[in-house]
């Protein structure tokens, strides 16, 4: 039996989708020439004054409202002081005792039911620059393009209980932030990063154990792997009678382990104080109303609607609503008369597969909802069978032709003519007379073999239901 349970809290840094930095007009574009997007404000020249990017405030309020947070009417920024080469001012402008969003929840649909993860807070801050160590022998390089880019820091309560729940939380949060268009959620480019606080405690205890903080995890898979490893490591320490020490650890993606960052710094002493260069932000009711009006229907509401109004299984509903563009495509198809379950099946099967295989975005896909509805009609009416339908779908995906045209030009109409199938089946039964004997002797599973042969000879066009019926008649 397990002796310990894991207690996990996440801190997520989400880069906001603003065009410019938090306190100056430098671009936030990713991948530009190093140090080409900086100015006296973001590289910390003396005598400059930061000015707050209004959009960043609106984005944070939008995310806060969507996640059910309380928005603080009175806000100010604080200086967090520490030395590091990627922090040109020697302090980060952040929020401390008065974060803009308090509380909030994220609901996860896990295999064993729903879990609700509460948020502690969301606050605004500026990002630091980027250090590059690889390939340099005895020095490091600093790029300050990212210094000053607006971030939302989203902090959860320590209510996450498993690595799976942690990655489900990240996926859900990413989905919501992308719906709201406040963060692009690109983990590879670092626009969504996660630190995990992990501790263990004896099952049944309500006290918190000593935690280790794992820094800068940048994929859903690594969130799970890093936490899994860290839980195992702490279990081993405790089993041997040792003590977990409070420290910062880094996840090493090549070994799959977490390693202590032997930080030379003493205990963190950030000496926070109110930022004297910035005046307070007062969030008015008018602003709240305006921001509220920009919030679109979110994945949770869509899931509810897909299950209740369209009768989709929860699994389908979750998958189709994860990305706004996919959800829109689905709703468009249903609005234009597509049967929700049939549309969902085709989307989750063929469409997603082909989009993935060809790395195509659904917005650029040649198959439109109208194409799919045309195909579903052909299958429903019995003009083609499902198997041929899949071939037609792929053809539509490649050429953008309508299903009906493809079926006609390729001669794919289903053979539902009993006479025609009769003669094909007679030929096959004659050709495989020994199999027929074995079938009659009780080897019933040979039915599949006969059906397969019929399909082969008709190039998959035979109506499978009819083939089964005829075979049954002829084989008794």
């Amino acid at each position: 039996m397990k002796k310990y349970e894991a207690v996990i809290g996440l801190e997520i840094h989400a880069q906001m989708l603003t065009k410019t930095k938090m306190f100056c007009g430098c671009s936030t574009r990713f991948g530009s020439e190093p140090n080409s997007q900086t100015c006296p404000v973001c590289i910390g020249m003396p005598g400059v004054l930061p000015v707050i990017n209004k959009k960043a405030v609106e984005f944070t309020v939008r995310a806060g409202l969507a996640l059910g947070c309380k928005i603080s009417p009175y806000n100010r920024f604080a200086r967090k002081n520490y030395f590091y080469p990627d922090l040109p001012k020697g302090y980060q402008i952040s929020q401390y005792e008065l974060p803009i969003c308090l509380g909030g929840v994220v609901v996860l649909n896990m295999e064993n039911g729903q879990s609700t993860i509460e948020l502690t807070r969301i606050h605004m801050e500026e990002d630091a620059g980027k250090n590059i160590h690889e390939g340099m022998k005895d020095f490091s390089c600093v790029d300050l393009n990212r210094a000053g880019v607006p971030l939302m820091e989203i902090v959860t309560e320590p209510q996450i209980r498993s690595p799976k729940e942690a990655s489900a939380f990240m996926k859900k949060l990413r989905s919501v932030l992308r719906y709201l268009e406040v963060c692009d959620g690109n983990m590879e480019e670092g626009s969504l990063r996660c630190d995990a606080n992990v501790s263990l405690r004896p099952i049944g205890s309500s006290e918190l154990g000593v935690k280790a903080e794992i820094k800068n995890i940048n994929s859903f898979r690594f969130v799970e792997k890093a936490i899994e490893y860290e839980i195992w490591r702490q279990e081993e320490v405790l089993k041997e009678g040792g003590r977990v020490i409070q420290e910062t650890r880094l996840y090493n993606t090549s070994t799959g382990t977490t390693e202590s960052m032997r930080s030379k710094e003493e205990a963190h002493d950030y000496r926070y104080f109110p930022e004297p260069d910035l005046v307070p932000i007062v969030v008015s009711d008018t602003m709240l109303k305006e921001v509220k009006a920009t919030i679109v229907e979110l994945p949770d509401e869509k899931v509810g609607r897909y299950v209740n109004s369209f009768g989709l299984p929860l699994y389908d509903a979750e998958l189709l609503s994860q990305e706004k563009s996919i959800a829109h495509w689905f709703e468009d198809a249903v609005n234009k008369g597509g049967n929700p379950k049939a549309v969902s099946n085709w989307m989750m099967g063929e469409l997603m597969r082909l989009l993935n295989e060809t790395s195509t975005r659904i917005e650029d896909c040649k198959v439109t909802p109208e194409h799919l509805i045309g195909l579903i009609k052909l299958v429903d009416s019995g003009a083609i069978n499902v198997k041929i339908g899949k071939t037609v779908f792929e053809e539509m995906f490649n050429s953008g032709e309508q299903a009906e045209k493809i079926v006609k030009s390729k001669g794919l109409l289903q053979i539902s003519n009993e006479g025609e199938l009769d003669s094909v089946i007679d030929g096959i039964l004659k050709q495989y007379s020994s199999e027929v004997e074995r079938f009659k002797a009780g080897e019933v599973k040979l039915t599949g073999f006969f059906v397969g042969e019929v399909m082969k000879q008709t190039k998959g066009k035979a109506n499978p239901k009819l083939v089964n019926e005829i075979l049954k008649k002829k084989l008794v």
Partner: protein
Amino acid sequence: MSVTTDDVKYIAALSRLKVDASELETFGKQLSDILLYVEKLSELNTDGVEPTSHVIPVMNVFREDIERDSLAIEDALSNAPERAGNFYKVPKIIE
């Protein structure tokens, strides 16, 4: 309030300052004097007074999210003690 020599060492470390052992006592005394002077403020009764985060009653000073020209790379790097290509060159951070 008196600042011990240990406090001085700690503050010096946080500020990345090298302080000679012979100076510790002097700085300790000077810092104590400054704190003592500021202590006077706590004689004031501030019950029911909002903490002041800014001396002038101004709020909501914003910029629109509009891009402006950045510095040329050469200008940005011109104050760097050392550079490597278009990067700032700094002592190795992680061993």
